[in-house]
């Protein structure tokens, strides 16, 4: 997503707080399921590297042990015997075959390890995310949460599938090449290693320069991105105000900056490769000269031609993995930063639930409530007293009481003060007040999206803290102002309210919500798939679907947040009707914006700055000529 928070991938390379710990933990996640796999990969990589090294070693033997003796035999007039060479080559070929097989094997295994770990992580993240309290979603930008799935998990994929095996094989290659080089010639090895240090120094210098500009590039890109986003969103306003020239000017300025940082960043990244390649060549020349010098001085006693040739080819394969290693380190740091954010999410505390009162199906037997396995349509709270173990059943009626409730999203800032209210079963309570008065906050408390700081909320006489959260929420229907629909068929979207509802029940609910007629007019009726964020439906239609969804759940109590968006009068009337039908016979808390809703309420609560300032019926409140009167008439009293 391209929101202001969706730009994590463009931010400069992040700092990893505790790389060791993160690495260990990440490795732990991989090992959990793939220990044997990883051991196999380990072995295969060693085999493949060794096969490669022995191939390079063979070139020396080829010349020294086979070709030169044969050439000597031929010059001496004899006939060269190719059998030993044939044998040796067959042996090498066999090694190569094993090496190739090992390469294939570890690449294949790594696919499973990588993708399996990704699957594992994704599932874990999602499952954990679903368990997080609403507060987490309210306090974290959604773009940041999404970025964990899109960017962070993805960098991990690259690290596990590419960087890890490559680093490992580079390391083994370096070690084995180094050993072979030492075995061939210690002085030449010193020259070679010396040059590697030079290369490492050059890499570091250039990389830090390019890193600086890459950082600048990301920042400039972020700025330009923000500007484009803003201008594109306001494009029609730009046109209406003839602001085109000015915005082009501003854009050019940003664009020029981005060009410079992008140019410089790429410039330094581009020259790294030729610099190292040529330093590699210099190293080659130095080794050749040194080798030759040694050969000439000692007259072949210290070193043979074959050894020099062989060493020279090792020299080439020595600098390569070192370059690779330095590149991989970069991507590993990126991945660890991603892993850290993944673990951060996984470490967020899940929603706590100490409730033990549960909601059960019940039936009346001899005037007493008993539990039933069937869906009876009668619900009861099953209260197992902790001290005595005694089981008590209370019918679910929908009586709600708030007793001196204080609440703040953070402890130091209380937004609701001393809220007292009660709703008898079937009553309709309306909340009115200006923006920020705390209307939505109250509804957040009833279904325990947030927990209160002080006071008590009772549902059918039971403190809601004692009720299991899932059962509490199941007993409360909710229609939010922002109708969230899912990209699925309309049928499934309504069924979301109660998963075991039959098609008939879904249609009945849609009829109650006045939605049936427009659904039937859609090309695929109830099977019409709702596009992401419901783009193919009007605002009013979406509201009616949300109402149908709540209706199919058939809860005894309702929380309703009336939509305020301007929809035309006819649709509004239909939405209104469907809401009224839904509210009938249910205890309802409604954040009201419409006159009819307010007028029919049993009690109207006027909120201001987190306090109840007036309460009563419509007529009573009008008589008071207070805030309500002011809101209603649009006049100051």
């Amino acid at each position, binding site marked *: 997503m391209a929101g*202001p928070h969706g730009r994590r991938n463009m931010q400069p390379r992040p700092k990893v707080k505790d790389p060791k710990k993160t690495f260990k933990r990440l490795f732990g996640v991989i090992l959990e399921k793939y220990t044997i796999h990883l051991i196999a990969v380990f072995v295969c990589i060693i085999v493949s590297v060794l096969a490669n090294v022995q191939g390079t070693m063979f070139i020396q033997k*080829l*010349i020294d042990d086979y070709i030169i003796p044969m050439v000597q035999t031929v010059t001496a007039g004899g006939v060269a015997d*190719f059998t030993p*060479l044939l044998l040796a*080559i067959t042996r090498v*070929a066999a090694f190569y*075959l094993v090496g190739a097989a090992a*390469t*294939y094997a570890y*690449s*294949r295994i790594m*696919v499973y390890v*990588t993708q399996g770990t*990704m*699957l594992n992580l*994704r599932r874990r993240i999602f499952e954990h995310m679903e368990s997080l309290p*609403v507060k987490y979603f309210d306090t974290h930008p959604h773009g940041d949460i999404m970025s964990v799935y*899109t960017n962070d998990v993805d960098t991990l994929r690259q690290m596990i599938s590419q960087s890890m095996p490559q680093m490992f094989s580079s390391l083994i290659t370096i070690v084995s090449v180094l050993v072979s080089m030492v075995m061939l010639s210690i002085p030449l090895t010193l020259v070679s290693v010396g040059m590697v240090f030079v290369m490492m120094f050059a890499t570091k210098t250039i990389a830090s320069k390019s890193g600086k500009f890459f950082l600048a590039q990301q920042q400039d890109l972020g700025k*330009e991105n923000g500007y*484009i986003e*803003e201008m*594109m*969103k*306001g494009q*029609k306003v730009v*046109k*209406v105000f003839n602001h085109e020239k000015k915005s*082009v000017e501003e*854009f050019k300025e940003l*664009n020029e900056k981005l060009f410079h940082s*992008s*140019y410089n960043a790429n*410039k330094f990244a*581009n020259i790294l490769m*030729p610099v190292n390649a*040529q330093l590699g060549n210099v190293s080659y020349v*130095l080794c050749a000269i040194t080798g*030759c*010098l040694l*050969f000439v001085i000692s007259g072949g006693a210290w070193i043979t*031609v074959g050894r*020099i*040739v062989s060493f020279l080819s090792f020299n080439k394969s020595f600098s390569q993995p070192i370059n690779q290693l330095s590149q991989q380190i970069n991507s590993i740091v990126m991945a660890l930063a991603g892993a850290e954010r993944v673990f951060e999410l996984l470490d967020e505390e899940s929603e706590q639930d100490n409730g033990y009162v549960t909601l059960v199906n019940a039936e009346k037997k001899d005037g007493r409530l008993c539990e039933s396995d069937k869906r009876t349509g009668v619900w009861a709270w099953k209260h197992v007293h902790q001290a005595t173990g005694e089981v008590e059943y209370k019918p679910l009626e929908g009586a709600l009481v708030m007793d001196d409730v204080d609440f703040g999203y953070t402890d130091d800032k209380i937004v609701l003060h001393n809220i007292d209210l009660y709703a008898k079963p079937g009553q309709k309570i309306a909340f009115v007040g200006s*923006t920020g008065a705390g209307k939505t906050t109250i509804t957040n408390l009833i279904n325990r999206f947030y927990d209160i700081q002080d006071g008590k909320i009772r549902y059918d006489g039971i403190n809601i803290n004692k009720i299991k959260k899932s059962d509490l929420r199941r007993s409360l229907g*909710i229609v*939010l102002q922002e109708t*969230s629909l899912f990209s699925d068929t309309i049928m499934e979207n309504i069924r*979301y309210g109660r998963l075991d509802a039959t098609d008939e029940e879904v249609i009945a609910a849609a009829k109650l919500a006045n939605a049936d007629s427009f659904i039937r007019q859609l090309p695929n009726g109830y099977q019409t798939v709702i596009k992401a964020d419901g783009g193919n439906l009007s605002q009013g239609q979406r509201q009616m679907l949300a109402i149908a969804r709540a209706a199919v759940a058939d809860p005894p109590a309702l929380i309703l947040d009336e939509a*305020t*968006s301007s929809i*035309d009068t*006819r*649709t509004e*009337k239909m939405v209104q009707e469907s809401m009224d039908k839904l509210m009938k016979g249910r205890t309802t808390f409604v954040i*009201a*914006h*419409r*006159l009819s809703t307010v007028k029919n309420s049993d009690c109207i609560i006027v909120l201001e700055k987190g306090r109840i300032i007036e309460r009563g019926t419509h007529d009573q409140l009008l008589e008071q000529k207070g805030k309500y009167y002011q*809101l209603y008439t649009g006049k100051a009293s």
Partner: protein
Amino acid sequence: MIKTLAVHIKGYIRESVMTPLFMILEVVMETIIPWLMASMIDEGVSKGNLNHVVTTGLLMGLCALVALFAGYMGGVFGAKASAGFAKNLREAMFINIQSFSFANIDKYSTAGLVTRMTTDVTNLQNAYQMILRICFRAPINLIAAMTMTLIINAKLATVYLVAIAFLALVLIFVVSRTYKLFSEVFERYDDLNANVQENVSSIRVVKAFVREEHEVGKFNKAAYNLYRLFVKAENMMVSVSPVMTLTVYGSMIAISWFGANMIVGGELSTGELTSMLTFCMQILMSLMMLALIFVMLTMSMASAKRISGVLSERSTLTNPEDPDYDVPDGSIDFENVFFSYSKKSERPVLNNINLSISSGETIGIIGGTGSSKTSLVNLIGRLYDVNEGSVKVGGKDVRSYDLETLRDKVSVVLQKNVLFSGTILDNLRWGNENATEEECVKACRLACADDFIQTFPEKYNTKIEQGGTNVSGGQKQRLCIARALLKKPKILILDDSTSAVDTATDAKIRRAFAEEIPDTTKLIISQRVSSVENADRIVVMDNGEINAVGTHEQLLESCEIYREIYVAQTVGNGDFDKKGEM
């Protein structure tokens, strides 16, 4: 498409030509170096000729220096050419988008345009740099290395020809297969992320209906399907590596065997053999490189298509050849106007509109959603062109005016309005760049915005966040009205611009308009009867036609639709408090 894009290399042609030239020089040097290595071994090391080793070494050093220089210059020019190309593309797109008419804008989504200007351009920048630096390099490298092997020993070189042909076939096969698989993988991947996105934004619904487990189950299934596809695609990809290594190993063994035979036969030297083996890697690497380029280029094709789409989009509105720069007054005439957004649609959005508004009149416009109220007023500022008939402002057809002049005199407060990041003053001055602070304050008083601005600690210098998120809906609307007022327009159009303002303030704004700018023609679109009932005349729109025109009283008597709306809003069904509260 390539032509549309290629034009934007301008300004960086020198760099674009120099880059491949330097890259070629580098490749030539890199081909000479192993050849020198061979000579060093044959003539120098083998014969113990230190002199030769040193001279060849020096020559090699020189070559390395030239290669370094070439590589450096190629890197620098390549970076400049591609960064410049990207800059030009972005600029050209931005400028072209600025010239878009409303009809053009409607075609693209904001997110779509942003992606085109950022991600897609970056893709092309990388692709272009690669073309310049590697596209020439890889084939030349291949040809150079092949030539060298042919020069050294044509017979042995045939081994490579066979290997190349074999690898090319395998690569083409695998790449084409995996490309398809991977595009499917990424599609599924997007779906999965869309699912997460939905869960994040709808978490309240998920939790309220206790559907966490249901969602987890759904996600797990989708994630597993993605896993299977991914594994399938990657396994395919992975199968390239053993083929690759086997081919390399195979050629090396073949070269060793035949080479040894030839050396013994006196046809080849040991040095030449080592050179042949060195070229082996070079040849196969460039082949891999070519395959990679192929994949990258096909992937950037999609970006190229999207960018050239924006670049070749032409504005549907153009300035007249001999434009009129004078708008005499604020009168508006609609004469037999027909309008539709798309030529293909059967029913026009506006159907035979005839309406005459005199300068200084206040006109209310009311009607259900989809009754074309907005479409009607959008024609006045020539945001769209009519299909038939004509719209006149000040007695002249809007198409005869200079667009800028017309839009300066016709100020529209759009339904979907936007504030930009910057201070309140910055935003207000969109209306008039040279407005003094006093003028701004005056406009804000008129729009009833001064009161709340004064409550901000930094008053008129308060920073507005991107998208205006730090002011409420009602405040935003009032600021937008003030901004429009600063243009001192002859015609002011408010398109549902006070929907989030409470009724009392709404009335105050309208009163201020009547008293302070009586000569400005005012058009007010609203869902609320209370917003239009005091207008000089009210236009009732229904289904793209004017249903009735008249005063509040006249319409109550004669127009059924108007009466219906009025009854619905006043008798127990109206808004209770301010609309648009979030």
